[in-house]
């Protein structure tokens, strides 16, 4: 069936009887979550997603897709499937109330913890905990960071994060000068007004 319509082109072919095959994955890249530190001293915040074949490619894409304007001091990425997500609440209850107690495993892997404090906003990093699993990380985070109502919690194992190395921190040094990338740098309205004023004078 030669058709550009995906409803047709993705229809399964009529197979031979008795043949069982695994489902063919879509020809698509994995997604990676991008976290940006907008200013020195500010926490990292979730900015969005890039698609990439691996985490190193995701990092180079994230750098220009999410930090090509405004200001940025650092960046990191993690594959979406490595981001563990708590139950989300309706805002009446704290998401930490829905986190189960997990006894200490004694394993000391570092996990980064993120909070969603306002619906429709970004997840923001609140700190690091030591744990042996994402469940334990959230349980530990409840003891350490449960100070106000949060809608949702994320936990990401630090070894699954592509961090910016100390020597890479100069990647953004010239960024504040790139004002030409902001719409606000183009005074279109002023120019139009000048043009119309000139037209009035000549007519």
């Amino acid at each position, binding site marked *: 069936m030669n058709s550009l319509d995906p409803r047709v082109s993705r229809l399964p072919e009529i197979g031979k009887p008795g043949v069982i095959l695994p489902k063919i994955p879509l020809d698509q*890249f994995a997604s990676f979550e991008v976290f940006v530190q907008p200013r020195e001293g500010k926490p990292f915040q979730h900015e969005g997603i890039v698609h990439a074949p691996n985490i190193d490619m995701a990092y180079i894409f994230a*750098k220009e897709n999410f930090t090509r304007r405004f200001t940025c001091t650092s960046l990191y990425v993690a594959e979406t499937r490595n981001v563990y997500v708590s139950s989300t609440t309706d805002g009446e209850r704290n998401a930490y109330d829905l986190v189960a107690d997990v006894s200490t495993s004694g394993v000391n892997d570092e996990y980064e913890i993120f909070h969603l404090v306002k619906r429709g906003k970004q997840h923001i990093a609140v700190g690091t905990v030591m744990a042996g699993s994402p469940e334990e990380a959230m349980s530990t985070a409840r003891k350490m960071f449960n100070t106000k109502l949060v809608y949702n919690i994320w936990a990401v194992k630090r070894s699954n994060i592509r961090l910016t190395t100390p*020597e890479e921190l100069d*990647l953004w040094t*010239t960024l504040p000068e*790139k004002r030409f990338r902001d719409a606000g740098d183009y005074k279109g309205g002023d120019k139009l007004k000048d043009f119309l004023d000139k037209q009035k004078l000549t007519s």
Partner: protein
Amino acid sequence: MNEGALKELLYKMADDLLILGHRNSEWTGMGPLLEEDIAFSSMAQDKVGQSLALYNILHALGEQAPDTVAFTRHAAQFHNCILVELPNQEYDFSLIRHFLFDTADSLRWEMLTKSTYEPLSLLAKKIKGELRYHTLHANTWMKQLGTATQESISRLQQSLQVVMPYALGIFEPSPNESILLTEGIFEGESALQAKWKTRVEEIVSGTKLHLPDWKTVTPVFGGRLGKHSEHLEPMLNEMSEVFRMDPTAEW
């Protein structure tokens, strides 16, 4: 200070960056992935920005204003190497050009951080982070496609063969280099080329690509003297089209 020798260095660097910046910007809206389209376009913009910084230094030395220099010269007045003016082909060609040129470019600027000519050494330090990203981007792509599939490896390999003679044209020698060396402005093209070969070999060794035997590659020279391929003039005409409509326009 020998101003002629210095200006020659500044012009060839600025022209390389302007022309490659324009060529790479031709991928805007047509990149192989949305994410890459944006990344490659941003780097093209960086290159044009770096060329502007160099044209500003030249302007301070008595040359014409950056826009005049960029948009009103003929092909024979440009000093870029032929590598950067070649038309885009498949993306593998642009990636290989990006890798070979940017490796040389970042090493050149690294050498210039020690230049006795302060405007250059200051600029070199300022744009270090931009260059770090450009080479990180190029090296990550080389590693990715240079180890991925038979098709990606053979495409990159094919482009590497085609591009290499032009890449060696980056280092076209000039009699003025000894003056720059004596004055501590720039160590020279052959010193740069030696560093470049080592770095290129290092990156390529992490892939399934093969470098040609350096002795068998004949460099394509001429660009530094204004002897260009037939591809530069049409590109300049297109690049300056809007400027020529109204050279006094303010943006």
